[in-house]
C-alpha cells in the first residue's frame, strides 16, 4: 500500500481511538478535577457500560438499531446510578481522603469485575451495529459505523463543553472545583454535586463503551486498556482540564493509530508511556493543567 492510503487508514483508526478515548478520559478528568479523586474503577464503569449495552440490545435483538439506541440511553443511566450509589455508600464515608479513595476504587474495580464475571460470564459477546455499510476507498474498505462513532463523539464533546461552560450546572461544578469551601458558603450542596459528578464521569465512560461495543464486543476484562490510556491522556493533558483532555486524547489517539499502522501497536504504547514520563518530568501539571494552589 502506498504512503497516502496508509496514512489515511492510520488517521481514521487514530480518530476512532481518539474519539472513544476523549469521552472516557473526560469522565476521569472531570471526577479528578471536581472531586480530587483518582478513580481507578473508571475502566470498569466502561466495561459495565458495554455489558449493559449487550444486555439491553439482546432484549431487542430483532431490531439492531432499536437495540443499540435503547442501549445508548439505558446503559449510561444504569451505570450512572451504580456510580452514584458507590459514591454515596463508599467515597462519601471516606470523606474523599486521597489515599483511602484510591484503595476504595481499586476495591470497586475488583468487585465490579468479578460481579460481571459471575452474572455475565467470561465470554465476549458482540452487539450488532445499528447500521452497517462499507465505505470503499480505492485501496481498502472501512466501516461506516466507525465514522459514525467519530461524529457522535464530536457531538457529545460539544454538548459537554456547552454544559460545562455555558450552563448553571457547569458553573456549579466549576465553582466546586475552584474552591470547595467558598462554594459551600454560597449555598452549593457540595455533597450532591460530588455524587452527580462521579455519576457523570462514569456515564461518559459508559457512553464511550456503548459506541465502541459494536466494533469491539463486550468482555469482562475490557476495562483495563481504557483505564491506562485515560490515565495517560489525563496526565498529559492536565488533570481537570477539558481542553487538555481533548487535545491529549487527539495526540495519543492519532499517534497510536499512525504509529500502530506504520510500526507496531506495542511501540505506540511505549511512546505514549514515554510521553507521560516526559510530561511528568518537565511539566508535572500537564500541558494545560493549572498549577496546584
Amino acid at each position, binding site marked *: 500500500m502506498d504512503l497516502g492510503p496508509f496514512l489515511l*487508514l492510520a488517521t481514521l483508526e487514530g480518530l476512532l481511538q481518539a474519539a472513544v478515548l476523549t469521552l472516557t478520559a473526560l469522565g476521569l478528568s472531570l471526577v479528578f478535577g471536581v472531586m480530587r479523586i483518582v478513580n481507578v474503577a473508571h475502566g470498569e464503569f466502561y466495561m459495565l457500560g458495554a455489558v449493559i449495552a449487550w444486555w439491553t440490545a439482546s432484549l431487542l435483538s430483532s431490531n439492531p438499531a432499536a437495540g443499540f439506541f435503547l442501549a445508548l440511553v439505558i446503559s449510561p443511566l444504569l451505570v450512572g446510578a451504580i456510580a452514584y450509589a458507590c459514591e454515596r455508600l463508599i467515597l462519601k464515608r471516606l470523606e474523599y481522603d486521597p489515599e483511602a479513595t484510591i484503595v476504595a476504587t481499586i476495591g470497586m474495580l475488583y468487585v465490579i469485575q468479578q460481579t460481571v464475571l459471575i452474572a455475565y460470564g*467470561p465470554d*465476549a459477546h*458482540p452487539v450488532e451495529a445499528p447500521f452497517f455499510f462499507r465505505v470503499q476507498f480505492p485501496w481498502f474498505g472501512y*466501516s461506516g459505523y466507525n465514522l459514525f462513532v467519530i461524529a457522535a463523539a464530536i457531538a457529545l464533546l460539544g454538548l459537554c463543553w456547552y454544559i460545562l461552560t455555558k450552563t448553571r450546572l457547569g458553573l456549579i461544578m466549576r465553582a466546586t472545583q475552584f474552591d470547595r469551601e467558598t462554594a459551600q458558603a454560597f449555598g452549593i450542596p457540595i455533597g450532591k454535586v460530588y455524587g452527580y459528578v462521579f455519576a457523570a464521569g462514569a456515564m461518559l465512560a459508559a457512553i464511550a463503551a456503548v459506541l465502541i461495543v459494536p*466494533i469491539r464486543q463486550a*468482555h469482562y476484562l475490557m476495562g483495563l486498556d481504557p483505564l491506562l490510556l485515560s490515565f495517560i491522556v489525563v496526565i498529559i493533558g492536565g488533570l481537570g482540564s477539558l481542553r487538555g483532555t481533548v487535545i491529549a486524547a487527539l495526540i495519543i489517539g492519532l499517534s497510536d493509530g499512525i504509529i500502530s499502522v506504520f510500526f507496531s*501497536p506495542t511501540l505506540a504504547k511505549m511512546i505514549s508511556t514515554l510521553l507521560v514520563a516526559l510530561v511528568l518530568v518537565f511539566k508535572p501539571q500537564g500541558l494545560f493543567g493549572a498549577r496546584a494552589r
Partner: protein
Amino acid sequence: MSNSIIKPQKGISRRSVLQGMGAAAGTGLALQAMPGFVRYSQAATSEPVKIGLQLHRTGIGASYGRWYERVTAAAVKVINDGGGINGRPVEVIVEDDGTDPKRGAEVVEKFATQHKVDVAYGTLFSHVVIGSAPRAGELKLPYVVVSEGHHVASGKLNRYVFQPGITDVRSQVIAMAPWISKNLGKKVTMIFPDFAFGHDHRDYFSEAIKAQGGQVAGLIAIPPTESSFTRYLPQISSDTEVLYHVMVGPAVLTFVKELGQFFGSSRPQIFGFIDSLEAVDLATPQLEFLEDTYFWEGNPRYAQKDQTEYDKFYREMVGVDANGASTSDQKDISTYSHMFGCWESLFAIKQAMEASGYEGQTPKDKQGFIEAMEAIQKFDEGREHPQGDKIFNGKNHQCYGHQNISKVTGGRLEVVHRTAIEDGLYEVSADYTTMSL
C-alpha cells in the same frame, strides 16, 4: 474461585457401591441384566480415580473452557456407565486456571497436594501448558494436555506431560501446506497470535510452504490480548495470493469482521484456522465475506454427509447439534474443532491405566501408567476416538491424526479435503523416555 466436581453418575458413594457389590455377589448374570448399574465389582478398591481438570473457566480461553468442561462430563459419564477405569469410578475435580500461566502452575500444585488427583489433564492455551508443565514434572504428577502447540512434541517439557488427544500444530500445518500451495497459491501472508502457539504456526508453516516452492510474503504477529486489528491489515502486501490467519481469544469475531471490512469482495484467497472462528456463529452479520474461504478443522463442526456413527454418538453425548451449536441453545456455538481432544484424552488415560493395571497413587503405579502410555502406538477410530484413528509416538508423547480442510459453502463448513496421518509426520527428535521417572 470455588472448584467443582464432576462425580460419577447416580451419586454413588462408597457405601452404595459396597452394598451393590454385596447384593450382586455371586450373581454375575444379574449385573448384565440390570442396565445402568455400574459394574465396579472387580475393582480392588471402589475409591474413585481422581482426574484434575485444569480449566480455562475464566480469562481469554473461557469459550473453550465452557466446552472442555461439558465434553469432560460427557466422557466421564460414558466411562462410568461402562464400568469406570479398572472397575473404579472416575471423579473429575475442576480448577480454574484463568487462562493464566502463573495460576496454571498453582492449579497443578493444588491438584497434587490438596486434591491428590491421579492425573491432571485438560488445559489448552500453550502459555498455560508451558507455565504449568515444569511444576507437574517436579511434583511427579502425570499431566495430560489438550493443547495443540508443538511444546510437548518438541521435547521442551518433561516425561510427565502427554498430548494423546490432539495433533500438534507442526503436524497440522505440514499436512496442509501442500494442499494450500496447490489449490490456493504460493505467496502467503500470515497473521498469527504473538505467543508460543502462534510462533509454532509462523515457524513450521513458513518452513512447510517453502518446502512446497512457496514463499512467505509477510508475517504479522498480533498480541493475544489485542481487541482491534484493522491497523495491522495494511501490512498485507498487495501481491499476496493467500492470507493465512489464525487468531485466538475473545476478540476473534472482531478480527474476522474487520478482515471483511478491509477487503470487501476484492480479497486474496483466505485460509484460516478455525481457531479464528471457534465458538463464533458463521451466520453472524458481516461474516458473509467468508463464503468460499477455507478453514482448517480438527473435527468438522457441521455434521458431514459421510458422518460416522462415532461422530453421531459423540455429538449426541456432548449435546451438539448437526450445525455445531449446543442442542439447548442455538446461540451457543461449540469449540467442536478442538474439544474432541478432551474426550479422546480421557479414553487414552483409561487405556493406559487399564494396560498398566493402575491401582493407586504409589510411585510404582504412576511409573506403570507413564510407561503404559508411552507404549501406546495407535488409537483406532471408534466411540473412544470419534475424530478418527491416530498414531501415538511414545518418545515425544504426541499423537498424529487426520486434519480437515473445509470450505465455507452456503454458510456451512463443508470438508473438501482430509489429510492422511502420514502427511503430518515429521522427524521426531525428542525422546522423553530417556528421562528418569
